[in-house]
């Protein structure tokens, strides 16, 4: 008897075919995209390098040693030392923590603000929509870099301490980032709210909050994921430009952008390329990987793009 039961079970099991979830399908498709996978692994490597790497460094971050200043790359200092005798590689890793954190945190903030405001304005339409979208239009019509420059100047005028600037820069970047996201989410919500499943939520008598957060926003997640990925790349670029100009993260806190500030000094620029080429290259490689990954995600998530 038991063997028969087992047989039935054995036969039944493969019959229960559950179609894989959207995320599993996506991952399967993404795995076929070699470029996107290389990018993903590179990004994981960058994270490990930045957040775990410093523990393996024999050098202490801010220990200055004038006797060892301006050494070219060697076996003991792989990327040389800077004007204060600090190890460039260690600083690069610590700067990675700051730059990656700023990129991710400002992305999360933009997404939270953008998705919320976009969903609300697409769901309620009318006056709410008008106010939110005009505000987004206004913010989008001031070009990003000048807007960031002004906000950076305000930060410097207010003499915000170096360790707090970081957080304000995250907020600044999300101020610049949310309008485009809100517009995108709003467009999605406008078409989603006309679909039958939303009529079902109406029949069920769900509250607006539940409709928005449990039914509408989750449906925009695939799109949000792609935009969020690309948004991180944009934030890292903006932060580095701002820090390079001395209006973003300021020393002693290292960031990839302000490490490149060395190139503003003609001697360092000409004679000591190890001071500014590694951070520049790191920014470039990180941003390229994020863009490629985002592009791969877009292809993997959008069935229409399957060609």
């Amino acid at each position: 008897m038991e063997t028969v039961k087992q047989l039935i079970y054995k036969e039944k099991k493969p019959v229960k075919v559950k179609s894989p979830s959207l995320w599993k399908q996506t991952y399967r498709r993404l795995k076929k995209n070699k470029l996107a996978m290389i990018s993903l692994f590179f990004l994981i490597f960058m994270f490990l390098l930045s957040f775990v790497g410093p523990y393996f460094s024999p050098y202490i971050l801010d220990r200055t040693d004038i006797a060892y200043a301006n050494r070219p790359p060697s076996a003991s200092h792989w990327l040389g030392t800077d004007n204060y005798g600090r190890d460039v590689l260690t600083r690069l890793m610590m700067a990675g923590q700051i730059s990656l954190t700023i990129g991710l945190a400002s992305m999360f903030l933009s997404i939270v603000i953008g998705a919320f405001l976009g969903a609300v304005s697409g769901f309620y339409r009318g006056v709410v929509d008008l106010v939110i979208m005009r505000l987004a239009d206004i913010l989008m019509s001031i070009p990003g870099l000048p807007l960031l420059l002004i906000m950076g100047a305000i930060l410097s005028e207010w003499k915000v301490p170096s360790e707090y600037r970081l957080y304000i820069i995250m907020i600044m970047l999300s101020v610049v980032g949310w309008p485009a996201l809100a517009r995108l989410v709003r467009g999605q919500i406008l078409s989603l709210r006309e679909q039958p499943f939303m009529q079902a939520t109406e029949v069920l008598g769900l509250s607006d909050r539940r409709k928005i957060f449990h039914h509408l926003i989750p449906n925009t997640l695939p799109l949000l994921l792609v935009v969020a990925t690309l948004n991180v790349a944009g934030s890292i670029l903006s932060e580095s430009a701002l820090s390079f100009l001395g209006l973003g993260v300021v020393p002693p806190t290292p960031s990839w952008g302000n490490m490149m500030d060395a190139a503003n000094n003609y001697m360092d620029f000409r004679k000591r390329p190890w001071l500014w080429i590694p951070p520049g290259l790191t920014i470039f490689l990180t941003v390229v990987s994020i863009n490629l990954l985002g592009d791969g995600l877009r292809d993997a998530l959008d069935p229409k793009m399957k060609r």
Partner: protein
Amino acid sequence: MKQYVLQRFIQMIIILFGTSFIIFFLFAMLPGDYIDSNLSLTPERAQELKALYGLDQPMLQRYFTWLGNVFQGNLGYSLKHQESVTSLLNKYVWNSFIVALLALFLTWTIALLTGVLSAIKQYSLLDGIVTFFVFAAMSFPSFFISLLFIKWFGVDLKILPVGGMIDTGSNSTGFAYILEVGKHMILPVTILTLLSIGSLTRYFRTGMLEVIRQDYIRTARAKGLKESVVIFKHALKNAILPVITLLAFELPGLFSGAIIMEQIFNWPGVGRIQLESVSFRDYPVLMAFTLFLSCLTIIGNFLADVTYAAVDPRIRLK
């Protein structure tokens, strides 16, 4: 159509007001100004100067005074350069404009060609190379690529000047002057082109890919038309349509993209003046320039929407 234009026009006016409001209040948030940071002034003299420039009045009043002045073409007075912002802008904007225009032309020509080519030969080696370059160009920090180019072409190879618009101490005229400026322009124009070419190529490629899958293209081929006619006459016309509206955004985009490039190349354009005014706290200039760029963007946006609606009736019927 008329109603659509009118609707968009009113929207544009509202956005223009909102933008000027935000820009003004951002600057009003600044606690210091050129007078405060100038230590050689006595407190009485500083007070006098503030009254002269109207800096001691309440914020809202200052906004309307400022806006009224802007409408009369008076954008304020640069405290550092000791001349009106309008004449300052007029003096430097053309230097930026010429670089931006040349970069615009190059960007569009190259992006159109590579975008269309990589779309017709999708997944070919050429497409792969183009896609790779597009992503690289999109991901380069502007300051890093500028510095690299200066190092390679200016410092190491010594074939191009490292910055400025003319050689130091040069007083060439006529054709020699044009040649000299042209030589100094090569790197800035190349970099601006590189920075904006990526997204545009992508747009052309996607637009073209969408169009060449449509039935009317198959019909055109079935009629026995030459492939070049199918692509360039039938497909390109429709593929280019959504992209053409981007043209209106490009110029202000190039101006703001040029800020860092101008600073690094020491190019005497508005971008460099703007960055300079950040460090000298010369806020009227910064404010005027930001307003100028925003207005360009808003008006460009409006023109783009209107032309798009004019050529594509589907838009205005929505």
